[in-house]
C-alpha cells in the first residue's frame, strides 16, 4: 500500500456505496430470490403445521393433547431430556476445561471423537445400542436368560424386570448419544478463545479451584453454556430416528412425542399428528427466539468489553 493511501482513507461506507454495491435492480432480484426460496422451504411448512393442527378446532386440539397416550409420550420425552441434557452439560464443561485450559498430546483426535455422534446417522445411533444391550447383543449374551455368564446380575435384572432395549433406558441412552457433542462444541472454542490467564490470576491470588471455576470461568462462559443447553434440549426432545430403533414403539409406554406423531400419522389421523407436532414446532420457535436473544446478549457484551 502506498503512503498516500495510508494517510488518507475515507470511511468504508462512503466509498463502499459507490463502488462495491450492486445496481438496485440486481439487489431487488437477489432479495426476491432469497425470500421466495426461504418462503417455500421455511415459512410455508411452519405456517402449515399450525393451520393443520387447528384444522378441526380448538376442542379437537386439546382432546388430542389430553389423550393418555399423548400425555405419556410428553412425560417420556421430558424424562429423556431431563436426564440427557444435564449429563451432556457436565460432560461439555469437563471436556472444555480439559481441552481449553491444558495442553496434552492427542487433543485434535479427542476433538474429532467428540464430534463423532454428529456424523453418525440417527438410525445407526439406535442400532449400536441394540447391538450392545439387545437380547442378541454384546451384553445381552452375558445376561442371556438360558445360560447367563453373569448369573447374579442376570437374575437381579430379571427380578426387577429391568430392560434397556425396547424400554425407557434405551431411549435415554440413544438421546444422550445424539445430543452428546452439543454443549462441548459450544464451550470448547469459547474457552479456547478466552485463554487461561484470568483463571491463573485468580489462582495466584489465592482462590481455590472451585472458587476459580464458579467466580471466574462460569460467568465468562455463561451465555455459551445456555446456548449449548438450548440446542441440546431441542434435539433431545425432537430426536426421532435413534429413538425409534430402540423404543419398540409401545403406545402409552415407550413412545416419545416424535414417535407418537408418527403413530397418529400412520393412523391417518393427520390433524391429531399435526396437533402434537405443533408442540414441537412451538418448542423450535422458542429455541430460535432464545438463540437469537443469547447471540444478541453476547454481541453487546463483546462490544462493551472491547470499547475502551
Amino acid at each position, binding site marked *: 500500500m502506498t503512503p498516500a493511501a495510508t494517510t488518507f482513507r475515507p470511511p*468504508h461506507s462512503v*466509498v463502499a456505496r459507490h*463502488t*462495491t454495491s450492486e445496481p438496485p435492480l440486481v439487489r431487488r432480484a*437477489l*432479495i426476491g*430470490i*432469497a*425470500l421466495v*426460496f*426461504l418462503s*417455500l422451504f*421455511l415459512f410455508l*411448512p411452519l405456517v*402449515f403445521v399450525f393451520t*393443520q393442527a387447528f384444522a378441526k378446532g380448538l376442542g379437537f386440539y386439546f382432546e388430542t393433547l389430553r389423550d393418555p397416550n399423548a400425555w405419556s409420550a410428553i412425560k417420556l420425552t421430558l424424562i429423556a431430556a431431563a436426564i440427557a441434557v444435564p449429563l451432556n452439560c*457436565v*460432560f461439555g464443561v*469437563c471436556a472444555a*476445561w*480439559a481441552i481449553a485450559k491444558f495442553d496434552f498430546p492427542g487433543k485434535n483426535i*479427542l476433538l*474429532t*471423537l467428540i464430534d463423532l*455422534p454428529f456424523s453418525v*446417522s*440417527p*438410525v*445407526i445411533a439406535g*442400532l*449400536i*445400542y*441394540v*447391538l*450392545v444391550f*439387545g437380547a442378541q447383543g454384546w451384553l445381552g449374551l452375558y445376561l442371556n436368560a438360558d445360560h447367563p455368564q453373569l448369573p447374579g446380575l442376570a437374575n437381579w435384572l430379571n427380578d426387577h424386570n429391568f430392560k434397556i432395549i425396547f424400554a425407557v433406558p434405551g431411549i435415554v441412552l440413544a438421546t*444422550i*448419544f445424539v445430543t*452428546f457433542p452439543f454443549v462441548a462444541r459450544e464451550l470448547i472454542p469459547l474457552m479456547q478463545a478466552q485463554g*487461561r490467564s484470568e483463571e*491463573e490470576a485468580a*489462582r*495466584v491470588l489465592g482462590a481455590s479451584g472451585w472458587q*476459580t471455576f464458579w467466580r471466574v470461568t462460569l460467568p465468562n462462559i455463561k451465555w455459551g453454556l445456555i446456548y449449548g443447553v438450548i*440446542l441440546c434440549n*431441542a434435539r433431545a426432545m*425432537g430426536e*426421532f*430416528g435413534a429413538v425409534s430403533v430402540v423404543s419398540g414403539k409401545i403406545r402409552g409406554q415407550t413412545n416419545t*412425542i*416424535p414417535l407418537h*406423531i*408418527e403413530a397418529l400419522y400412520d393412523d391417518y389421523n*393427520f390433524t391429531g399428528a*399435526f396437533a402434537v*407436532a405443533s408442540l*414441537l*414446532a412451538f418448542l423450535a420457535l422458542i429455541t*430460535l427466539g432464545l438463540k*437469537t436473544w443469547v447471540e444478541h446478549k453476547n454481541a453487546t457484551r463483546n462490544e462493551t468489553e472491547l470499547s475502551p
Partner: protein
Amino acid sequence: MAIKRIQAGKIRVLPGFKLTLGFTLFYLSLIVLIPLAAVFWKTSTLTWPQFWHTITMPTAMASYRLTFGASFLAALVNAVFGLIVAWVLVRYEFFGKKIVDALVDLPFALPTAVAGITLAALYSKTGWIGQLLEPLGIKIANTQLGIFIALTFIGLPFIVRTVQPILEDLDPELEEAASSLGASRWQVFWRVILPMLTPALLTGFALAFARALGEYGSVIFIAGNIPMKTQITPVVIMGELDMFDYGKATAIAVVMLVVSFMLLLTINVLQWWTNRFNTNHLA
C-alpha cells in the same frame, strides 16, 4: 521462582486436569466409543462372503445411489441458494431481515419427524404445493423428487451459516481496489469475492452433504418406502432391523459409517483450510 516455573509451563496452576480429562474420556468411551465398537464386533461375526453379499444386494446398491445422488443434488442447490441468502442477509437491508435471519436455523431446531410429516402433507396430491404441481404432471410425494426436497430443507442452514461470517469479515478495501482498477461488479464478485468464499462454501457443502446422507426422520414420510425406488440407506437398515436381521443391518451400517468418517475427515481438513485462509487474507 514459582512464577518462572509457571511461565515455563513446568507446573500447572489450574487444577482439575486429571479429573476433567478422566471424566471426558470415561464418558466418551461409555456413550460413544464402546457402543460404536459393537458395530465392528457384530460385523466380525459375519464371514467375508456374507458381508460382501449383504452390502452389494440390489436394494442396498439402489439405496446408495439414491442417497448419494439426492444428498449431492440437495447440497448443490443449497450451495447456490444458501450463498444468495447469506449475501442478502449480510449486504442488504430489507423489512423483516432479523426474523428471516433467525428463521434460517429452523431446520436445525425443528424435529425431523415434524419436518417429515409437514413436507409430506404439503407436497401430497391434496397439499398446498402438491395440488398446484399435480396438473403439471409433477409428483413429489412418494418419489425421489420428494427425498430431494426433504434433504434440501435439512441442509439449508449449513451453507448460510458457514458463508455468512466470512462474508461479514470480508475487507471492503479488496473490492474497492478491484473496482478502482476497472473491474466490473460481476468481475469483482467472480474473481475477488468468490475465491475468498470457496473454502467456506466447500465446508458448508460437505456439512450439508454429510447431514443428508444419514437423514431419516424428514425423509421417510415423503419417500413412501418403495424398495429399489425410494428407499434411502437408513431406511434399508431400518427394514432389516424390523425383521430382526441385525447382521445385515450392521453390515450396511458399516458402509455408511466408513463413508461418514471419511467425510468427517474431509470436513476437518476443509475447516482447517478455511481458518488458514482467513488468517492469511483477513489479518
